[in-house]
């Protein structure tokens, strides 16, 4: 046999325990039951005051909702934490409920990953057992077969486990962005009301769907929406039926929600996509390039076109 029943049972328990620890580290103490807290305490893995990624992302959303696009992109995580420590972030009961639902959603993803790993462990172990039996029947020395089978089983298990990294990365990226955008949405409604105009700013490397839904035909200028017109989610819809949502439009979506300020409009500009120097003038990444300089051929490869929100001059 490849694994004894005891070994398999211990591995399955290790998966349960490590995922419990992951839930604590990513969702915080509040997401665990008393029984789960006791289990972590017994194993010496319990930490106190863990907020988790949903609360972290909500704080980020609440604090950055007031910032213009260029500033929001540049606040660092450590400075964000300093702000969170200094400021008491007030949340409405609806926002608290939204955090609870978002936590449940991430919890369900973690549960799904854990169940899938438990299932794969059991089936790989059974398959390894069958291989071992066949080889012993072929008169290979039994203990050598067991050693080789266990080694191969470990390789297969670790390979299966490593494949889960991308699944988790997708959950982390999508859910963090989702929570941030919902917090920004709440702050916009709270400050400006449900008729406030907003726009979604996709990243330069966004997908065709975000480009189609969030930008005008020029692929640069953001479309303007009323904040209460945004859909809740595209979950379960075909891509052709997707709408612009408050949170992530789709898994891995990183589009950001901004309030549109009255008296401002979008102007197309060219900005530096890499640092460079023309004469005595140095341009940093993101800096607007004046039209006169743009005529110089050497600049052309170092710029990209974008639309920025500027006060109307007329």
């Amino acid at each position: 046999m490849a694994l004894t029943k005891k070994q398999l049972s211990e591995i399955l328990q290790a998966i349960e325990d490590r995922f419990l620890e992951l839930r604590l580290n990513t969702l915080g103490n509040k997401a665990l039951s008393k029984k789960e807290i006791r289990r972590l305490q017994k194993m010496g893995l319990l930490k106190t005051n863990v907020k988790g990624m949903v609360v972290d992302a909500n704080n980020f959303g609440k604090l950055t909702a007031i910032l213009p696009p260029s500033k929001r992109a540049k606040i660092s995580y450590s400075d964000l934490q300093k702000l969170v420590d200094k400021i008491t972030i007030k949340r409405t009961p609806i926002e608290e409920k939204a955090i609870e639902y978002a936590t449940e959603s991430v919890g369900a993803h973690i549960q799904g990953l854990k169940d899938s790993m438990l299932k794969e462990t059991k089936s790989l172990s059974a398959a390894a057992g069958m291989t071992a039996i066949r080889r012993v029947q072929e008169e290979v020395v039994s203990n050598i077969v067991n050693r080789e089978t266990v080694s191969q089983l470990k390789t297969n298990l670790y390979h299966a486990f490593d494949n889960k990294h991308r699944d988790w990365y997708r959950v982390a990226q999508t859910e963090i962005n989702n929570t941030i955008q919902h917090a920004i949405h709440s702050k916009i409604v709270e400050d400006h009301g449900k008729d406030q105009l907003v726009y979604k700013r996709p990243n330069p490397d966004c997908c065709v769907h975000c480009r189609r839904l969030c930008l005008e035909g020029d692929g640069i200028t953001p479309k303007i929406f009323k904040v209460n017109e945004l859909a809740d989610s595209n979950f379960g819809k075909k891509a052709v039926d997707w709408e612009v949502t408050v949170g992530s439009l789709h898994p891995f979506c990183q589009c950001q929600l901004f309030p549109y300020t009255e008296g401002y409009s979008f102007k197309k500009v060219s900005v530096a996509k890499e640092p460079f120097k023309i004469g005595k003038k140095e341009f940093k990444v993101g800096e607007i390039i004046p039209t006169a300089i743009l005529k110089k051929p050497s600049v052309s490869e170092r710029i990209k076109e974008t639309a920025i929100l500027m006060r109307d001059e007329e």
Partner: protein
Amino acid sequence: MMRLSVRTDEQTTSEIVEDLLMKSMEKSESRNEAQEHMVKKYSRAFDSMMSKLKEDIEGILK
């Protein structure tokens, strides 16, 4: 501006935001740095869990 009513002894909330923001902007040029950091932080939590799990399995199977 953000309507946070909390005031520390020396600075109002908006002053703290602006102050930290300016320092932050001097240090960073990347987009959505805090958000990307957050994703990496929670992505690492998973990797760390996986490493510990593999150690557990090594211990069980040795």
